[in-house]
């Protein structure tokens, strides 16, 4: 087998050292009744060419990846990935290294993580960011658990109903073993599509542990995050934001400026391909005063014996490999290579480029809204939006099928997660879409009656 270097003379010599005659003897101490009786029932190994052919065949069947004009978003976004990003993440020096526990052998990874943490604090206007998490949904769930550690006596968790359904579901899973916690959903205003502030105010009391708000939310609407945070603060509760389209932070007021205590999000928009939904990465940023309750890895700056600047994992006494059952989380990854992709991406985009791109997304989405409106397709909500919005159609399934027949993936039907919005589609516009195609989209959707 091409990955294994053992020649027959290697085998003979190695077996001789361990005092055995054949490989099978190596496993004879495994109790006989537990030992595999038959070979693994999968096909024999293949050459590289055969593997490539077989897998390319499967990739080729996914016509949804290439043959359609796509307006799909909903938490995962089709942005251009500069070639330099992949050129770096493909480097085996990064890709095939382990978690940087041995600092002297990992200065590349640790410095890149330090830069990543800095970029996330700049984007969110928070004081400290961890080294990365699985994804946006689990980062939001970890933020709620962190809030629970900060306010152990509070029992009410408020989730904006307009927070992404996957995020709400993930938070529920992560909280399912904490008996005393009650989860309430805060309704959205059926006109604006933003969270109903009056409804939230009613539950913002001394029981409230935290509130999680999408920014923008699952309808693409830019929530009044500052007002939510202020109400949470008055109740002495923790305000958490969850941003799935993190490009938004290039343009919108950052959570830290709006009074948010823990800012979380999904980083896929920053240089990672769609990849059928993963891997991307999550981020979690907070205030320095709470750093010891932060979940996940952190890299810090220090010195080496000769006084040179160096970086290493730090504050590990929060983590599972040191603290075991008293750790702040069981997480044992920071999706490091994905965080690296984002670090390269954000460095390329830079101070002006990220804002410029976010603005261009806003411009495209608003131009699309105008074109759709001209064809009689109305926005469902009035709230301000970044690069996606909800449109009203007569029959969402029919409309999506009609568009598909014209080689367009027009959006995501919201009815499954929001029965009250069964006549709507979430449709998304990025720099990968072209304005001269918007009329075709409008035509496809307007033709359905």
């Amino acid at each position, binding site marked *: 087998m091409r990955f294994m270097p053992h020649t027959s003379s290697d085998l003979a010599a190695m077996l001789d050292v361990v005092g055995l005659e054949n490989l099978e003897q190596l496993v004879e101490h495994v109790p006989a009744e537990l030992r595999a009786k038959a070979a*693994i029932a999968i096909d024999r190994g293949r050459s590289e060419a*055969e593997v490539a052919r077989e897998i390319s065949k499967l990739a080729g069947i996914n016509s949804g*990846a290439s043959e359609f004009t*796509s307006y799909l978003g909903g938490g995962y976004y089709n942005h251009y990935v500069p070639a330099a990003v992949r050129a770096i993440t493909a480097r085996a020096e990064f890709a095939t290294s382990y978690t940087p526990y041995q600092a002297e052998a990992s200065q590349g990874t640790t410095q890149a993580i330090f830069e990543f943490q800095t970029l996330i604090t700049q984007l969110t206007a928070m004081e400290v960011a961890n080294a990365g998490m699985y994804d946006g949904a689990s980062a939001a769930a970890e933020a709620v658990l962190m809030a629970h550690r900060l306010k152990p006596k509070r029992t009410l968790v408020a989730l904006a109903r307009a927070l992404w359904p996957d995020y709400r579901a993930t938070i529920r899973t992560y909280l399912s073993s904490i008996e005393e916690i009650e989860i309430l959903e805060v309704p959205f205003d059926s006109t604006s599509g933003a969270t109903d502030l009056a409804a939230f105010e009613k539950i913002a009391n001394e029981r409230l542990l935290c509130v999680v708000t999408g920014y923008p939310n699952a309808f693409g609407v830019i929530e009044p995050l500052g007002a939510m945070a202020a109400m949470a603060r008055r109740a002495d509760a923790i305000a958490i934001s969850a941003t799935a389209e993190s490009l938004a932070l290039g343009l919108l*007021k950052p959570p830290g400026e709006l009074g948010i205590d823990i800012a979380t999000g999904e980083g896929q928009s920053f240089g990672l391909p769609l990849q*059928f939904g993963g891997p991307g990465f999550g981020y979690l940023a907070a205030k320095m005063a709470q750093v010891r309750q932060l979940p996940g890895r952190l890299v810090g700056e220090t010195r*080496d014996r000769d006084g040179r600047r160096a970086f290493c994992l730090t504050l590990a006494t929060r983590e599972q490999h040191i603290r075991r059952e008293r750790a702040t989380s069981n*997480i044992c990854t920071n999706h490091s290579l994905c965080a690296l992709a984002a670090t390269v991406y954000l460095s390329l985009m830079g101070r*002006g480029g990220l804002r410029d791109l976010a603005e261009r997304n806003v*411009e495209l989405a608003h131009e699309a809204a105008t074109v759709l409106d001209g064809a009689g397709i109305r926005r469902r909500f009035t709230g301000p939006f970044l690069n996606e919005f909800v449109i009203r159609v007569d029959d969402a399934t029919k409309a999506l099928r009609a568009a598909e027949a014209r080689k367009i993936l027009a959006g995501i039907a919201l009815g499954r997660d929001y029965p009250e919005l069964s006549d709507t589609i979430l449709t998304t516009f990025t720099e990968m879409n072209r304005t001269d195609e918007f009329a075709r989209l409008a035509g496809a959707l307007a033709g359905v009656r």
Partner: protein
Amino acid sequence: MMATAGKIRHITPAPEPTPRRIEPVAGVPLIFELSCDGRRGADGPPRPDGVARGADILGRELCREDLAGFPELSEPQVLRHFLRLSQLNFAQALQFYPLGSCTMKYNPVLNEEMAALPGFAGLHPAAPEHLAQGALVLMERMEATLAEITGMDAVSLAPAAGAQGELAGLLMIRAFHRKRKELRHKVIIPDTAHGTNPASCTLAGFQVVVAKSNKRGFLEAAEIRRLASNDVAAMMVTNPNTLGIFEPEIREIADALHETGALLYLDGANMNALLGVAKPGATGADIVQLNLHKTFSTPHGGGGPGAGPIGVKRRLEPFLPMPRLMRTADGLRFDTDRADSIGRLRSYHGNFGMLVRAYAYVLALGGDGLAEASRLAILGANYVRKRLEEKFPSATSEPSMHECVLTHDLEKRAGVSTLEIAKRLLDFGIHPPTIYFPLVVAGALMIEPTETESREILDSFVAALEKIYDEALDDPELVKGAPYSTVVSRVDEAEAARHPILRWQPKEQ
């Protein structure tokens, strides 16, 4: 200067006779320190004239001030910066990397190409299922492959990592007992367990009960019988355990648990020892989690992403996380309507990109190659153990599986610690093994050579450790001062924790 016709004007100073050697800058500057106002590393998207700016469309009150402190560099500057950083790393592709329980095997390069195929990389997770059948077929085959390898009945590919697989498994255990109207609060964990096991228990709302392994380094069924009760929900066992020993009484342990209504969770972190050797399902496990970044060769990425599929026996299938893959007359689709499921662990369907890589790996090896891989991994561990036995004896007399745990007397004889030995290994161009783990072995060196390393590499590793042993006795200060050849000398980790500096900030003006 030679005189020549006409006047010569020196416009630059004459070069010095021997150019001074320029010392390389200590370390690579931070990306922020390389920044210069006005540079860009990516051209802006084309914007037709006369279009209102996004910030004006939204209104300035929703928009931030500009991103102060964000880097400003050209594309080649960014590329050079990160390439230089890459050169500061040790990596499996460059060095022997025998980290115990981490399975740093070769990561086939084809697998990266496969994951990057436009049909996968460009596939949106909300694309209609009938337009994503290739991806779903790959997932279905991966589920079936992992079920066959582990001897389990159903597999979920949803967990993003091994630790998330553990959380999923424990929440399923909780749901399983709930369904039977039983409240059980405790989970038994051996003293040799990885730290994620107890941390996952806490996250899933269980109290940890520690089971002691015996003097020979394995668990006795008698100890489990002593601890099992109707308040014990399950036991988590890593097999082979973190001493690298196959748990010989695992079947009796499973029986003891099952007799009291408890379940056996098998942590598959060490699955690289068991391919075609023993199926966790046959050892009595009810749930097993796998780490695709270990046994199934997906790259570790400097700390992820990986993937942590879980396999279960039939009676636990209803509790598997969402979404579940389902075959219908119209092809494969995701089922999100399952009353007993523990729910979602994350957005969409899992770390699909890692599944592509792992599938490419199992296709390349096949059933025969996987079985060979485990045997060669076991051979490598036993070879290293045997060759080092005089200076670094094994912590156990039991036969090793895919990794061996060694110890030494240098602390006593020379005041040289395991950490110092590890740091000295860096000077030999070798990444150190896992150290001080498992916790039950003082000064442990946990070595997992993997099947993809050659005999010459193993021999050079043995030679390096033997040399360090002798150095420690002859000149302990030499070892204590290591490393000498890395880009930085010993890093002061205590200082980092005492005064945390966790981000770059612009210098005060």
